[in-house]
């Protein structure tokens, strides 16, 4: 299998706080990896390092054969191929939905406006809200906003998608509509790294589960093994807390 992301002994500190400790991770093309763990365990930081929203201080991160360094050219190449969806959606509130989506194709890919808007409409249909195209983000529900955010990422045609707790800021009744879009995306073969506590989603979609605690990957296993036969006590404790509430 083709390896698309490699993390090798990645370490990161926020001042004195050692947030990532010797992270090793390999992602192959088409793989869906779900990362879970208690808050403060470094899971968000890890995926934010993959598109350089955070810089790591030690170790190597290679995406599609390009190593992430301070070289801005490499960062640009990687960001064009890696999409990201945030917990807080982060839509641009002063732009309409369709402008939010077509912005990056127009300015980063230098696509003609009309073509970019057609692409934007295609992805809006894909996330099932084409009728919202000309509204502003503030007029949409949280679930709709997050689907726009996913469409905005997809419009750049990335081959890897990073999801940073995409449903954590949503009301319970809106979680499903977002997860449905993500499941559809997974079925189409997208390489996905998802930080989430939605264990139902993880069981449906994931090829690999990763459990992190205190900056380390504590356990990495298939969902079957992870849920039914976890090896570490820390994982067992976490699962018992998250599944029995």
């Amino acid at each position, binding site marked *: 299998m083709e390896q698309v992301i490699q993390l090798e002994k990645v370490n990161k500190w926020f001042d004195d706080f050692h947030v990532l400790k010797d992270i090793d991770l390999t992602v192959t093309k088409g793989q869906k990896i779900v990362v879970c763990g208690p808050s403060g365990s470094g899971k968000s930081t890890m995926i934010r390092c993959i598109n350089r929203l955070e810089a790591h201080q030690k170790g190597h991160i290679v995406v599609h054969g390009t190593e992430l360094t301070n070289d801005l050219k490499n960062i640009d190449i990687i960001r064009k191929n890696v999409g990201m969806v*945030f917990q807080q959606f982060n839509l641009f509130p002063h732009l309409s939905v369709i402008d939010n989506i077509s912005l*990056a194709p127009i300015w*980063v890919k230098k696509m003609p406006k009309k073509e970019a808007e057609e692409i934007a409409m295609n992805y809006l249909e894909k996330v099932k809200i084409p009728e919202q195209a000309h509204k502003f983000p503030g007029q949409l529900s949280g679930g709709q906003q997050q689907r726009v955010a996913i469409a905005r990422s997809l419009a750049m045609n990335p081959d890897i998608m990073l999801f940073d707790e995409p449903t954590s800021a949503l009301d319970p009744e809106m979680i499903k509509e977002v997860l449905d879009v993500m499941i559809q995306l997974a079925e189409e073969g997208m390489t996905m790294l998802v930080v989430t506590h939605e264990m139902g989603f993880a069981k449906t979609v994931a090829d690999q589960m990763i459990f992190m605690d205190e900056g380390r990957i504590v356990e990495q296993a298939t969902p079957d093994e992870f849920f039914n036969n976890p090896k570490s006590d820390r994982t067992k404790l976490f699962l018992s807390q998250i599944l029995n509430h």
Partner: protein
Amino acid sequence: MSSLSINSFTHKKYYNWVIRNLFSSWINSIFTIIALIFLYKVGSFFLNWAFFEADFRYNFQGDLILDRTFCSKNIKPGEFGACWAIIYARWDQFMYGFYPVEEVWRVNLTFALLPFALFGVLFDKIPFRKYFIYFTFLYPFIAYFMLYGGPGLSPVGTNKWGGLLVTLFLGITGIALAFPLSILLALGRRSKLPIIKSICVVFIEFIRGVPLITLLFTANVMLPLFLPQGVNPDNLLRALVAVTLFQSAYMAEAIRGGLQAIPKGHIEAAEALGLTYWQTTRKIILPQALKIAIPPIVNTCIGLFKDTSLVLIIGLFDLLGIGRAALADMTWTKLYYEVYVFISLVFFIFCFGMSRYSLYLEKKLKTDNS
């Protein structure tokens, strides 16, 4: 019948409003009455002074007022009305300074074109906005050519400019030049590059820490020292440099306030999409930050517009300078109230206009994109 009932209904409404707001209690009633008496006294005095008892061009005997000795209040004891003739007599100076009379049409044309240049910038939902904006960029060149002269027009040195012309020139040009500079300063102050950041911080803090008068003196006296020998910018240009730098520092701080209100997540989302720093700044950060910063920006603009009157201390004749020159003239001396009330009124019209425009913008942007 029905119109009568509607009438009595509205009467009742006003009556209730008055009772509720003006006479709801003893104390309230007393204050209302005192305030009404005060308003009546002051208001009637002012109206009598400014209009009913005032001379405009002719005095109470019907003579054309040629100098201060013709004013009714200087002829007949007991007359106290304003003598507005000074404004008529000095009108050209108030508007144009010492601009040659036969060339004054050039200033008038420049003034007349100004609203068209501002139109496209101030309002966004207007027909042909694109062409208005083109005109806005063309306007400075037209204004320079018309006011200063060039091929086909005789040159008029800026030492001849004065009055409202100088006030508007310094106010509008100062604001227009300071705006882009202040955006760069505000961005620079938040930059991750230490040298750029410290240059911007030092510049802003230095300019804000010094009175405008000091800057004007500095520009007037010291600017020539920094320039190569033989280059001798005229007084008005020196004042413009000082005013622009002063305004840019204040506006930069207003804009920085707007920049700080933009959530970090927006910038991260733009970065994750692959937008460069300048694309993110232009497309994501500035449109939002400037919107938030409109009230403080307009605030600094109003402040600057009034502060332009300080240039009289370096020998420029702005509106206030012309007024003081008129008072120094023996034929018109001692008509202080008329001159200062008139100057106040002119400043007030422009500043009140800016203030109303800022309110309009805030209201409009609040309803936009809800």
